[in-house]
């Protein structure tokens, strides 16, 4: 009954989409949240069942063929769902956090009209359904359904307020950029089918495991690179990360669910799903690691200077995703997924917290016009603080464990440079997150030049903290942000503490084969436990260092920050302009394409060639008919005559041939 997991949200979507306009807000909210809640319950049940199935060839999995989908010649793709440890983690994250965010949204979207409200929740449910298909799919095509579906939903939700041009544009941008990635994904898929004649993950893994590792650039590398292109699109990595910051135009809960917790991690998940494949293409892994690392650093630096609270969080998401890819790149698949899972908690928490702030300030998103909210929004403040600490990597919170594992694996796998960059990024992370915290919650309220004194929320007394629905979500996520990490306590602290690695390990190996990637990492970690402790210290230092810097510049003497900005005004503007990547893309890609399309494709091919052909045909036919119509006397008898003449001739032919 796995299919119920995606089916329930889908049902919610159908209900809200069809008769949403007639439903009252509580009704449609109940439908949506209920659907997600049930789905979550069912996922838990499924995972529980998974824990009790006997492993087959070292892999625990529940397979379920829903129906035979595509059958054509050699191609036979059942619509098959599969839960294995990896998928288990994902469905729990998606449905669990999804439920909380649905709940949060019920309050957050209160201002919308009934119809809009229902539309919002129908999209949200649809997204959940597709996301679940994505993670449960047992073969590339099934996953691709989800892959495209979530893309669509993200487009719909980013452009939810489509009357606002910026939102509509952001939606389009996200969609188009994703198309580039999907293109790579499809090519990769085709290449795989051409090579292995199967698209089932396990089938591919089994065949790949038989091959030797590909030391030179070859087929596997090509395939994996193509797939990785898809991943960069979905998961906002260089070069395709540009859509994510703009995606913040969507409602904040959407940013939390889609653009922090779930969809953007699809790329990471996909690589984890094909761990064996990527494991056999070291070059690709290096590329992945480097790109991940660069993305992390770049996004971190941009995040330092952004003023829009959500954008800061967006860049931090990009940077954290970079971390995950780094982990994948150095072969620490479990670590990457672990970070994915902790990140889902605290990043969702942070987004929802920022949402609460924006909600309280009636749509104000600019950090420069916040401040001093600590006392007015205590609950938001405390939960936000927890989230910030978690992401900053302060020990004993979830972020620490996962980030630390990644760093350790990076170091132990010998990528020292990457490790260094990662540490710096960790420092940056702590810095910009605390900058955000200070600007938003400490000091004095700074009014936006726009509003006068009568502006809503101008008097702190008026500000209302998160309403219950939002509060519940925040608290639960906060607890999660603290505790989520304890499934993966490093072995050096508590031997055998890293249960999640052990749990996930089978998913990254070919069925039947011994977990080689993990084994390598394990033993590396084993006889370097000393260094690992050291590394842990370093990352802790980085975290606190970052906090310190932030405290110095934005708490102790804010003028210093401005001074710094003036000193390095060039750098500052570069960062503020996000390295002008958008402008570069526009100049290098968009404009040329536009020009070509206009001149060549439209004027030349379409208007000239195609239309010309069509019209030409029309003209020829017309000319001939003008001649031939003479034959058509309109006299019934004449027609009958010609008819019978034909009969007689044919009959005669058969008689006297």
């Amino acid at each position, binding site marked *: 009954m796995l299919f119920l997991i995606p089916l329930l949200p889908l049902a919610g979507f159908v209900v809200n989409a069809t008769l949403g306009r007639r439903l009252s807000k509580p009704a449609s909210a109940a439908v949506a949240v209920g659907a997600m809640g049930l789905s979550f319950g069912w996922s838990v049940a499924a995972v529980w069942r998974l824990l009790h199935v006997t492993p087959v060839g070292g892999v625990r999995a529940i397979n379920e063929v829903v129906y035979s989908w595509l059958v054509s010649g050699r191609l036979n793709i059942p619509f098959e769902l599969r839960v294995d440890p990896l998928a288990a983690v994902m469905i729990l994250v998606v449905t669990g956090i999804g439920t909380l965010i649905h709940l949060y949204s019920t309050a957050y979207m209160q201002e919308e009209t009934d119809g809009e409200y229902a539309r919002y929740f129908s999209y949200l449910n649809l997204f959940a359904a597709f996301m679940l298909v994505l993670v449960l799919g047992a073969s590339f095509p099934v996953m691709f359904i989800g892959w495209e579906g979530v893309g669509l939903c993200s487009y719909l939700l980013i452009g939810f307020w489509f009357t606002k041009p910026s939102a509509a544009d952001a939606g389009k941008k996200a969609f188009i950029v994703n198309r580039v990635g999907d293109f790579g994904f499809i090519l990769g898929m085709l290449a795989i089918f051409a090579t292995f004649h199967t698209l089932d993950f396990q089938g591919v893994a089994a065949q790949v495991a038989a091959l030797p590792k590909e030391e030179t650039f070859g087929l596997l590398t090509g395939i994996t690179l193509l797939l990785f292109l898809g991943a960069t699109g979905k998961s906002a990595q260089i070069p395709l990360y540009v859509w994510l910051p703009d995606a913040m135009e969507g409602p904040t809960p959407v940013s939390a669910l889609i653009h922090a917790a779930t969809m953007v991690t699809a790329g990471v998940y996909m690589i984890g799903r094909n761990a064996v494949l990527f494991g056999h293409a070291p070059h690709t892994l290096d590329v992945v690691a480097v790109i991940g690392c660069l993305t992390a650093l770049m996004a971190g630096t941009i995040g330092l200077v952004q003023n829009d609270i959500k954008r800061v969080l967006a860049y931090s998401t990009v940077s954290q995703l970079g971390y995950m890819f780094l982990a994948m790149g150095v072969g620490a698949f479990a670590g990457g997924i672990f970070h994915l899972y902790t990140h889902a908690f605290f990043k969702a928490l942070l987004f929802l917290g920022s949402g609460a702030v924006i909600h309280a300030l009636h749509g104000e998103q600019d950090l420069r016009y916040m401040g001093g909210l600590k006392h007015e929004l205590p609950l938001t403040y405390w939960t936000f603080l927890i989230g910030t600490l978690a992401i900053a990597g302060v020990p004993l919170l979830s972020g620490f464990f996962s980030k630390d594992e990644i760093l350790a694996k990076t170091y132990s796998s010998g990528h020292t440079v990457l490790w260094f960059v990662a540490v710096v990024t960790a420092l940056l992370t702590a810095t910009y997150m605390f900058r955000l915290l200070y600007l938003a919650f400490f000091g004095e309220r700074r009014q936006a030049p726009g509003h006068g004194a009568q502006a809503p929320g101008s008097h702190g007394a008026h500000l209302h903290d998160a309403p219950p629905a939002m509060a519940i979500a925040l608290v639960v996520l906060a607890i999660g942000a603290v505790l989520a990490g304890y499934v993966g306590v490093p072995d050096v602290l508590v031997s055998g503490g890293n249960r999640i690695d052990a749990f996930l390990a089978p998913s990254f190996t070919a069925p039947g084969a011994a977990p080689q990637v993990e084994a390598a990492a394990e033993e590396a970690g084993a006889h370097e436990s000393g260094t690992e402790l050291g590394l842990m210290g370093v990352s802790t230092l980085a975290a606190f260092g970052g906090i310190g810097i932030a405290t110095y510049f934005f708490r102790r003497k804010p003028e210093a920050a401005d001074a710094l900005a003036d000193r390095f005004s060039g750098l500052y503007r570069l960062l503020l302009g996000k390295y002008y990547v958008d402008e570069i893309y526009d100049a290098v890609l968009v404009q040329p394409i536009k020009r070509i399309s206009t001149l060549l494709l439209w004027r030349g091919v379409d208007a000239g060639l195609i239309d010309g052909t069509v019209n030409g045909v029309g003209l020829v036919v017309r000319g001939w008919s003008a001649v031939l119509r003479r034959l058509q*006397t*309109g*006299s019934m008898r004449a027609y*009958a*005559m010609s008819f*019978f003449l034909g009969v007689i001739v044919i009959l005669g032919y058969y008689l006297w041939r």
Partner: protein
Amino acid sequence: MNFLPEPTLNSYLVLSAVLFAIGTAGVFLRRNLITILLSIEVMLNAVNLTFVAVDRYLGAVDGQIIVFFVMTVAAAEAATGLAIVIALFRHRETLNPDAYTTLKW
């Protein structure tokens, strides 16, 4: 009583051929839409006769089933045809097919 030859398959076929020809002639000779439709019915019946005769010859029932279908189609044809005739007659007080030669281009 053997002063008459036993009917063979051919005799039936010849009969239906004759009927068919008569129908054909009717289509050309008559100047009345209704009679022309009737001639077409004659032709259809000639064909039916062939079917049944051959059916008998082969000892099958498929021919009879086809006859059944032919009749159904004939019914449909008659209904629509006559409806058209009525419409035409309303439009111009004659049933002569040669009066309706403008139905072209």
